[in-house]
């Protein structure tokens, strides 16, 4: 290692599993382990933070109904805001991702994870839920303008004994590490951040400086409406 060694990748794992350990968390951990191994091969270290949504479920519910963000929730959001990559894993209930999972992402500032690489993972009791990631979860992350990797990782009970799952995890880890290595999110921030729609507070105060050169600002300072 020399003085120009790259900063470690900051990996954040979001798990909406409910037991301890849950298969949802196990799936996330397998992706995370494979990601670390692969990154190490590329001479890259990884630091990871795990957000078990089960532990902040009441805080998430409070934030949804009262606009109030608890210190624990603020810490979780701050970790996401600094992530170089995100692994988001949820159980599937009633043909959709857990409400705990979607509620957490519902309360995030809209601009918090623009262009960040995301691995989506889901577990279910039946293979019939297999399209939940592609049909339902991708659209939420599209709204957040995150960059979901091409491979979705879904595990029904039969997948846990199937080497096919490992192959998909390997493939996902390659996609994920390459995206993180490219520095895409950071480059977007440097090169094109202003071109996204931002509102005051839409990325926890890091969204942008307050823009003075706008029609509304001119109207505020006594000008006419455009």
């Amino acid at each position, binding site marked *: 290692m020399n003085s120009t060694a790259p900063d470690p990748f900051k990996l954040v794992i979001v798990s909406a599993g409910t037991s301890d350990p849950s298969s949802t968390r196990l799936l996330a951990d397998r992706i995370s382990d494979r990601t670390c191994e692969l990154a190490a091969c590329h001479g890259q270290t990884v630091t990871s933070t795990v957000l078990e949504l089960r532990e902040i479920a009441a805080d998430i519910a409070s934030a949804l109904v009262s606009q109030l963000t608890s210190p624990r929730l603020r810490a979780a959001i701050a970790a996401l805001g600094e992530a170089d990559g995100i692994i988001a894993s949820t159980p599937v209930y009633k043909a959709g991702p857990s409400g705990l999972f979607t509620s957490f992402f519902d309360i995030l500032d809209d601009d918090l994870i623009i262009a960040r690489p995301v691995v989506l993972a889901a577990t279910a009791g039946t293979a019939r839920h297999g399209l939940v990631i592609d049909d339902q979860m991708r659209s939420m992350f599209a709204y957040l303008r995150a960059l979901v990797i091409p491979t979705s990782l879904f595990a029904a009970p039969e997948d846990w004994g199937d080497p096919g799952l490992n192959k998909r995890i390997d493939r996902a880890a390659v996609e994920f590490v390459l995206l993180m290595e490219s520095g895409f999110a950071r480059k977007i921030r440097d090169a094109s951040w202003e071109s996204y729609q931002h509102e005051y507070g839409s990325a926890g105060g890091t969204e942008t400086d307050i823009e003075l050169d706008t029609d509304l600002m001119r109207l*505020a300072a006594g000008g006419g409406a455009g």
Partner: protein
Amino acid sequence: MQFGIFSVSDITRDPVSGETPTEAARIDAIVRIAQKADEVGLDVFAIGEHHNPPFFSSSPTTLLAFISATTKKLIVSTATTLITTNDPVRIAEEYAMLQHLSKGRMDLMLGRGNTAPVYPWFGQDIRQSLPLALEHYNLLHRLWREDVVDWEGKYRTPLQGFTSVPRPLDDVPPFVWHGSIRTPEIAEQAAYYGDGFFANNIFWPKEHYVRLIRFYRQRYAYYGHGTEKQAIVGLGGQAYIARNSQDAIREFRPYFDDAPVYGHGPTMEDFMEMTPLSVGSPQEVIDKTLTFRENFGDYQRQLFLMDHAGLPLPTVLDQLELLGGEVVPVLRKETEARQDPETPAAPTHASLVKAKYGDQAPRQPRPNANRGDNVTGGSPYQDSSAETQADYPDL
């Protein structure tokens, strides 16, 4: 530093007695609450504006005129007056009238309002809320400063040769606060005109307010009204006070747990930790309130929310006894000892008259004679300058 109370005007079921007050009882109660605020030495009473149940305050100037007539020193104000759905011409007229009747013991706070259905009831569109608010205020600002206004904008029918009557008391416009929790354009407008900026401070993590108030202060200085420290800032807060904190917490909890907006969500303890809410002894409320200036800088007006969530009138009056009798006197003393000497006092009618006229007598407009068609001709007042000629539309 001014201290006072602000009310949302909610009519909420008392979760302890199970009783919902009638509109009549709640309106009588709010008058009593304002009078009590005056009796215990608070400086300001402010009322919200709403146009749907369960609120009663659709007509703030009527209420505030009555209150000012039955109080001695209290400044009456609003929190907020809707600059979006009200016609700025009517705001100019109604609040100038209130200013005359209260002998200048009034100001007002403008806000946009966030109840979507209200906009179409008044012929407006919530999607245009921000430019509407900005344009309306630009007009309102002129109506109070120019005897004759010709105006054309996007959101209101044009004005030709219009004079808003009565002219402001002593020809000094009411002081205006702009309330906002997340809109830089509103902070910019407040700064541009040298008006006050108020952050309600009740819900959000304070970092948002801190940033917005800092922006307002910078822009206030940029527009040449004074230094950043001389900008005029107001803050909200919320308190429930008892002699000792155990009683305060026991008494307030059922109201907190059932409160509109934040009830059935966070615990009261979490809410106290995360927001300006103080539930406790006078000393605890004092200690917490004194931290506000550390976050926002020295400021001019502190308003407390004291009468919401179904608290019955006798309880609110007891609260005001404690607030005015024990909390605010200490806050005044401690704030004075701690604040930067450069900190200005909140503007009042007397200070604005002094600033405009010095020791000269204020202007007292007298209209010219009615020409017989109920207008005064080209020049509305005997002392109107020759340049302010009204140019009436052709009929």
